[in-house]
């Protein structure tokens, strides 16, 4: 247990010491998206009845930032440790797979939530109403960061080089987040694309998260919870299995 706490603390410090780059930068990026998209699109679209596009955009941006940063935290920490070789300091002590996984996961969730809170703080005054279901918001925030944090652990263990990780990020994480309804409601899409979007787990994270703010979404929050929770359980088991088997870490 103390091993887990120590690794968790180390992972928190690792991003906190460079918070300018790991927290401030993504908050600024989200703010720019908010400024540009709400300016360009606010006249044209009303996503849900009674919800302006500007307000609609905010939870999507918050969730996208959380997801990307949770992924970045675990994946970049792991690959840096692997490439510099200092991962050996984690492989020599008697840490269990669960301690190892839990520490990276929790740190990724914390980074995601800190960035999410930052994005919310700078974008909310664009016109976000008071949230209607705060518990749904918290549940989807934590689970969404958990899914991407776990995916980051898997990617960080799998990748041998930074460019492999970049490819993972550019060809998997970015399309999944951008095509998940961050910038639009799925209901506005043609039927084919609507069906495709329903296969994307990130869509359910954003939809469920948005439901917490507006009390309405494209699908039921319970369905979203099942999909996101199921994805998390599957990825977490896979990740634990990889760590336990020593895949790429103990050859």
């Amino acid at each position, binding site marked *: 247990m103390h*091993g887990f706490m120590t*690794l968790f603390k180390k992972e928190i*410090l690792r991003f906190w010491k460079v918070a300018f780059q790991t927290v401030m930068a993504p908050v600024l990026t989200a703010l720019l998206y908010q400024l540009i998209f709400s300016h360009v699109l606010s006249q044209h679209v009303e996503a849900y009845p009674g919800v302006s596009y500007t307000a609609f955009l905010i939870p999507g941006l918050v969730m996208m930032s959380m997801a990307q940063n949770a992924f970045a935290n675990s994946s970049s920490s792991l690959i840096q440790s692997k490439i*510099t*070789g200092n991962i*050996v300091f984690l*492989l020599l*002590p*008697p840490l269990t797979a669960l301690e190892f996984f839990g520490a990276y996961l929790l740190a990724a969730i914390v980074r995601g939530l800190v960035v999410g809170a930052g994005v919310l703080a700078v974008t909310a005054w664009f016109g976000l109403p008071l949230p209607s279901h705060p518990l749904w918001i918290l549940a989807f925030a934590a689970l969404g960061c958990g899914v991407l944090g776990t995916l980051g652990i898997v990617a960080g263990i799998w990748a041998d080089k930074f460019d492999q990780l970049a490819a993972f990020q550019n060809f998997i994480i970015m399309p999944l987040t951008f095509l998940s309804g961050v910038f639009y409601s799925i209901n506005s899409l043609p039927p084919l694309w609507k069906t495709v979007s329903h296969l994307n787990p990130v869509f359910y994270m954003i939809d469920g998260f948005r439901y917490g703010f507006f009390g309405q979404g494209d699908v039921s929050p319970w369905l979203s919870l099942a999909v996101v929770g199921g994805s998390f359980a599957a990825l977490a088991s896979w990740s634990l299995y990889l760590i336990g088997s020593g895949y790429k870490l*103990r050859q």
Partner: protein
Amino acid sequence: MTHAISIESVSKRFGSLQALDSVSFTVAQGEFFALLGPNGAGKTTLISAMAGLSRPDSGHIRIMGHDTVTSARQARMTLGVVPQELVFDPFFSVREALVFQSGYFGIRHNDAWIDELLHKLGLTDKAGTNMRALSGGMKRRVMVAQALVHRPPVIVLDEPTAGVDVELRQSLWAFVQELNQAGHTIVLTTHYLEEAETLCSRIAMLKKGKLLALENKDKLLAHSATREISLKLAAALPASLQPLKVREADGRHILQLADIARLEDVLRELRLAAVEVRELSIHETDLEQVFVKMMHGGRV
């Protein structure tokens, strides 16, 4: 008594390369043991297998009786390893690195021991310095400290003195000897053979993944080699001694003796031939010669 380290027919392949070929030996508790061999012999591969950083294809390793695969946690608890590669976490200071390392081993409040380690390794005034800002030799010392945070009974140092200045080498060895006297088992690899010779009591030699020799140091030195004597004579070397002669240097005859006891015979021959001895010296073999000889396929 349980062996500190027990290695049973451990083999490991990397593709077509047999990095370890059925290596077996044991190290007793309290021993100071050297693992020698040329570059690529498999020393680091063997140490990685001991530390659970890699898994052998076959065979078993036990550290203080704990199997490194089936009782991995206990085995890791009893082992401290200083890796060969210089690695560090650039995000943290020396003290932070040591506090974290203690924590990974489940140890809280380790400050007294950490202070002692810093002191012994001459790092006290660098405690607050970021790892990135240390010189290579200092980073190496921090790695030694990191391996010792949990006071492991078995300590393995993979070339700890590579890139370390003479002064530190001496203080490091003094510290390691102190640990050995306090009961810790020490295994080291080094390319400075005189280090192995002065420090270690037993030596294993590896070559191409195979164990070539495993001996008590003195025994290895004693039966390894034929000794050489150098003679400066007032007259020519008697014919009866010609077969022993291997070369001449500076007007001295260099004779090779199978055993130092044969010196007696040589002197008798010289007396019989009435040749006066002006100078006589005996060349002791050192580990370096034994090593070079073995690595070139010579037998001990």
